[in-house]
């Protein structure tokens, strides 16, 4: 399993590692409750988004929407952008990312390094302006392709066909799957697969709860639920605040040596909640959760050091997942 024809072939197949120190202690004679981390930071560009990017590009190729030399346009500055940039480079496409000019320099550098072209939109207009700019560019270039991860079935299918089977192969005794809820692709795809194969599997979502500033003026009537989202796939859904996410992210590196980003901390918080419930109820549990990416891209937030209150302040107003 250690040799691949190209980097794209090395996507997925990530390790599942036990967390003997973070798993809760069970009383003498009680059934074991174990935590397992799926290390998605081991993907080619260091995040779980490589799976979705690869599947979305392949699906567009198979549908005849993408041909060598074509341009992919995406308003994104995060992990999906980095994954798409790598896939686009290796499959022979151009990637244009549209993002506000005030995103962190790490992100700009990463995307450029992977070969993406960046079009900046005015900082004052925020992300909406980036979308507006992307649309304007799309209008001028009707042959460019937007993959749209929130509604692209290939995003969820990537996890149905890869993440789910990998987990079941490595952990046939799995009782809980815990992942982050963003585009919902990971939970929908993996969750559907595991529900088909494992009786009584619990599919648990952890969603980030940001500082008040982020929700500030968001109007309830203008809310949004991704097209991929199907609540019937989930068993439970936890909202995890900044402080808990930071606490768990630090615990994960401190106790188990796994250096992850803050969204992983939020997921671990939910995983620990269901693990402790299993202990309380005297049930056996094998809880697998997703490590979305490494902590490197978040070092500049300063939230890995200082007190939890300092970290909370550092992340106030930021979208850390």
């Amino acid at each position: 399993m250690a040799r691949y024809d190209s980097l794209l072939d090395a996507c997925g197949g990530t390790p599942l590692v036990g967390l003997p120190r973070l798993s809760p202690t069970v009383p003498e004679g009680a059934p074991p409750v174990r935590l397992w981390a799926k290390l998605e930071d081991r993907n080619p560009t260091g995040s779980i988004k490589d799976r979705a990017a690869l599947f979305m590009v392949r699906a567009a190729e198979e549908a005849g929407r993408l041909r060598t030399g074509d341009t992919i346009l995406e308003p994104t500055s995060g992990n999906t952008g980095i994954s798409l940039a790598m896939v686009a480079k290796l499959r022979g496409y151009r990637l244009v990312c549209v993002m506000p000019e005030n995103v962190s320099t790490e992100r700009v550098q990463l995307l450029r390094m992977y070969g993406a072209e960046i079009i900046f939109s005015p900082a004052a207009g925020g992300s909406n302006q980036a979308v507006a700019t992307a649309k304007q560019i799309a209008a001028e270039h009707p042959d460019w392709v937007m993959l749209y991860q929130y509604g692209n079935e290939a995003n969820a299918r990537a996890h149905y066909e890869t993440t789910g089977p990998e987990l079941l192969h490595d952990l046939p005794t799995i009782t809980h799957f815990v992942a982050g809820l963003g585009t919902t692709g990971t939970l929908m795809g993996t969750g559907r697969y595991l529900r088909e194969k494992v009786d009584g599997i619990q599919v648990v979502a952890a969603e980030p709860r940001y500082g008040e500033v982020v929700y500030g003026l968001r109007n309830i009537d203008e809310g949004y639920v991704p097209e991929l989202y199907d609540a019937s796939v989930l068993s439970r859904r936890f909202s995890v605040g900044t402080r808990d996410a930071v606490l768990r992210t630090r615990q994960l590196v401190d106790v188990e040596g796994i250096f992850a980003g803050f969204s992983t901390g939020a997921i671990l918080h939910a995983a620990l909640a269901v693990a402790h419930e299993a202990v309380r109820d005297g049930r056996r549990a094998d809880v697998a959760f997703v490590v979305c990416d490494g902590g490197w891209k978040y070092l500049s937030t300063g939230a890995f050091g200082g007190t939890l209150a300092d970290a909370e302040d550092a992340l106030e107003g930021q979208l850390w997942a």
Partner: protein
Amino acid sequence: MAIEVRIPTILRSYTGGAKVVEGSGDTLSDLLADLDSRHAGLRGRLVTEAGALHRFVNVYVNDEDVRFLGALDAKLSDGDSITILPAVAGGAFGFAAAAAISQHSAAAVRRQSATAVDGDGRRGAVAAL
């Protein structure tokens, strides 16, 4: 002991600006009725005329989404903490992109001019999605 309810900024006009209010009730439905008796209009922003939770509102009981606990019938206990939040998709950048793009078909997106887009800058900063 009562049930603590965290109110998002956008709904504080109903609570006289208060971030946190207290209420009581055996179910979420009861609690919202109780709150509405003191903060008139609040319930109407959370519950549709058909009597279901508004699609774009998320309510959490002790950090767990109430839709998976029975929705408006979810059982509550004294000391519970309720958080009300507008629905968002993971991160504001992705959220704004998704919201804006999803309102139009791909073809319509290509025809859209930038000026037609909601450029009110309401939806915050950049996510890692």
